[in-house]
């Protein structure tokens, strides 16, 4: 009874917290959830990058209560292998003519395979996901067990819905982030949040079982809690919130470590601003934040080397901070070459750089921008080329407007410069890690696999840039541009869905 009453009290507290969120934020959350839930039904099972590995990790956690040992054994359960075979997964990826299961005999063959191979317990063999922390997968174990059926595809559908909740949480965090930075213009909170809610690549990943979803949520929350503490002042509670967001991120995916230097810098600046007459309170707030961030991570490290026996404190995860990058050869790649590669991966080559790694069009467009507009499936279907060209023109215009917006709002931005310095280091840290690992993979003879989704931990900044672009216009016209951009995002999302339907069912 005591436990039940505590659960009820917890539920009531959650409800109160939910009600404290502005109504518009709650509506953005619901809109994002419904939109991503639609995506989760539209995308056939396992047709999202690495979903097979993330599902396998979650299934192993759900079945055994511990993360995979990363043994040399089979990567997936017998049940998952059967599903992949029956879905003709290997034949569909990369083959735009192949549809997968679209006839009744194929469906019957799939069901027969699943009936003959019911074992959901795999060996926990190494995949691109197994060296990541287990928090996302432990959370996904909840819908796995709540699923009304043991059927792997039903479980996958429920787990995808849970991911959709995380995506909706990310949108809500972006809303709250904008609310802190633009307190005088409430419509910008909604416009920015809806731009993220209808970003089709974000929705595509959000609709799948993918550890990135918790990473995006934790990143957006980090941007939000830092902004909140900056505007309202650091307190012990806000310090704990920052620590909580950082812990969530570090236990979600190790990519989050790339954001830590910037977040740490912002935290130090917050403590400096809160120092007052004595340092004691300020240090206490800082210590609270660090303690809340570090304690769960320390427990994870301890469990890795003791109970779970996963080899090393971070289970070998530091070697692949961005997922899907192949084994890395650390020898033979000079720092000079690495720096050039990492720079050219994001920015135009500078005249003094000796290496020309991307002789054609810059990856800024071909990889990052086009990938954000839409490289769907296992990167095997896209929009027609004119869509990317037209979007590029729009990006030029929006970038110019954003600069004008910054100039117009310079007086409001000036007090936030310290915060933005932290955000800049966070973004730079992420680019540096992606660039470093891509360089090591590409120049070390492995297979580089950078994808636009690796930048999605910065979705809050994307929303901010859009909002700043709208603020470049006079007061009466800014909401018009905001509305037009949101409708454009909705249209983009709609046509991405119809593109997906034509790819797999047409």
């Amino acid at each position: 009874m005591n436990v039940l009453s505590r659960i009820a009290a917890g539920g009531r507290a959650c409800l109160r917290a939910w009600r404290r969120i502005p109504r518009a934020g709650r509506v953005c959350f619901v809109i994002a959830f419904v939109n991503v839930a639609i995506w989760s039904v539209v995308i056939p099972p396992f047709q999202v990058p690495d979903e097979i590995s993330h599902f396998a990790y979650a299934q192993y956690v759900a079945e055994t209560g511990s993360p995979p040992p990363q043994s040399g054994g089979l990567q997936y359960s017998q049940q998952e292998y059967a599903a992949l075979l029956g879905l003709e997964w290997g034949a569909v990826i990369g083959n735009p003519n192949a549809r997968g299961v679209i006839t009744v005999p194929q469906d019957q063959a799939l069901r027969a395979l699943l009936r003959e191979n019911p074992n959901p317990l795999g060996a926990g063999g190494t995949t691109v996901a197994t060296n990541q922390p287990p928090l996302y997968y432990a959370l996904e174990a909840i819908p796995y067990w709540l699923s009304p059926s043991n059927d792997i595809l039903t479980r996958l559908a429920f787990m995808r819905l849970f991911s959709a909740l995380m995506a909706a949480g990310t949108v809500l965090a972006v809303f709250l982030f904008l609310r802190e930075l633009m307190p005088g213009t409430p419509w910008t909170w909604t416009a920015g949040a809806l731009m993220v809610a209808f970003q089709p690549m974000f929705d595509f990943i959000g609709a799948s079982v993918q550890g990135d979803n918790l990473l995006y949520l934790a990143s957006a929350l980090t941007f939000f809690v830092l902004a909140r503490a900056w505007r309202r002042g650091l307190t012990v509670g806000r310090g704990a919130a920052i620590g909580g967001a950082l812990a969530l991120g570090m236990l979600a995916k190790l990519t989050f470590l790339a954001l830590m230097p910037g977040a740490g810098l912002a935290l130090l600046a917050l403590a400096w601003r809160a120092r007052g007459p004595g340092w004691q309170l300020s240090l206490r707030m800082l210590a609270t934040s660090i303690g809340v961030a570090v304690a769960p991570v320390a427990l994870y490290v301890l469990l890795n080397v003791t109970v779970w026996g996963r080899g090393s404190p971070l289970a070998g995860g530091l070697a692949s901070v961005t997922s899907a990058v192949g084994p890395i050869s650390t020898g033979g790649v000079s720092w000079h070459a690495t720096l050039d590669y990492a720079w050219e991966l994001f920015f135009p080559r500078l005249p003094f750089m000796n290496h020309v790694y991307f002789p054609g069009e810059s990856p800024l467009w071909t990889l990052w921008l086009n990938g954000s507009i839409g490289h769907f499936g296992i990167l095997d279907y896209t929009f027609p080329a004119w869509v990317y060209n037209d979007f590029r023109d729009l990006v030029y215009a929006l970038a110019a407007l954003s600069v004008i917006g910054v100039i117009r709002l310079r007086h409001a931005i000036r007090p936030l410069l310290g915060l933005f310095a932290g955000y800049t280091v966070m973004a730079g840290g992420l680019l540096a890690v992606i660039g470093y690992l891509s360089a090591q993979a590409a120049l070390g003879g492995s297979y580089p696999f950078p994808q636009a989704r690796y930048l999605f931990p910065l979705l809050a900044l994307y929303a901010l840039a859009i909002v700043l672009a709208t603020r470049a216009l006079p007061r009466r016209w800014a909401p018009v541009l905001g509305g037009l951009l949101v409708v454009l995002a909705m249209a983009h999302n709609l046509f991405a869905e119809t593109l997906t339907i034509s790819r797999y069912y047409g």
Partner: protein
Amino acid sequence: MARVRIAIGLAVLATAIGFLVDMSGSAPRGAGDDSVSRPVFANTVPGGGVLCQGSMVLPGDAASINILIGTYGHRMPRIAVQFKNLHGRTVATGALPAGVTVDPLGNRIALGYPHGPSVAGTLCLHVGGTHQIAFGGEPFPTTISAVRVNGQLQAGKVSVIYTRPGRESWWQLLGALDQRFGLGKSTIFGNWTLPVVALVALALWFAALRFLVRELT
């Protein structure tokens, strides 16, 4: 603000027109495939020979097949297509006449249509003439290729793409999409899923637009 309403209204109208134009475009539509790509010429058949490929599914709405044919510079021979069900009964036939030009994107061979519902079975390609020809596909080993040429196992598998009759808009394809959408997923989904998803998406658009207009004005 009226200007916000007008701008959003015009943007929604433009989207709706784009959507209607996209949905109304007519083109040949796929009926399925054998999940084999065609990076190489994977199988060869001597003139007068027959290639039979098992583990196939003939979709009920397939009115033709597309296969990539290599003739080594010779004139295209007649190629007859025969699809047999698991009991060995012929359920669909078709033929490519001799002398047709080789199409680098694959030649289309019409099947007798309609031929009944989707069925599992074996596809046989009867090659006329005297010269060897090759079919585009993938180099599978004999253990899983399920291909026999003149009764002998052969490595490789032929890529087969099925197409529906005539040209159709997406509106005309909705019935087929509806059925396909419920397959290869959790058993909780079915023929009801696509209509419900479409309705929910429509409701989401209305709700999001209404909310947006209210917030911006």
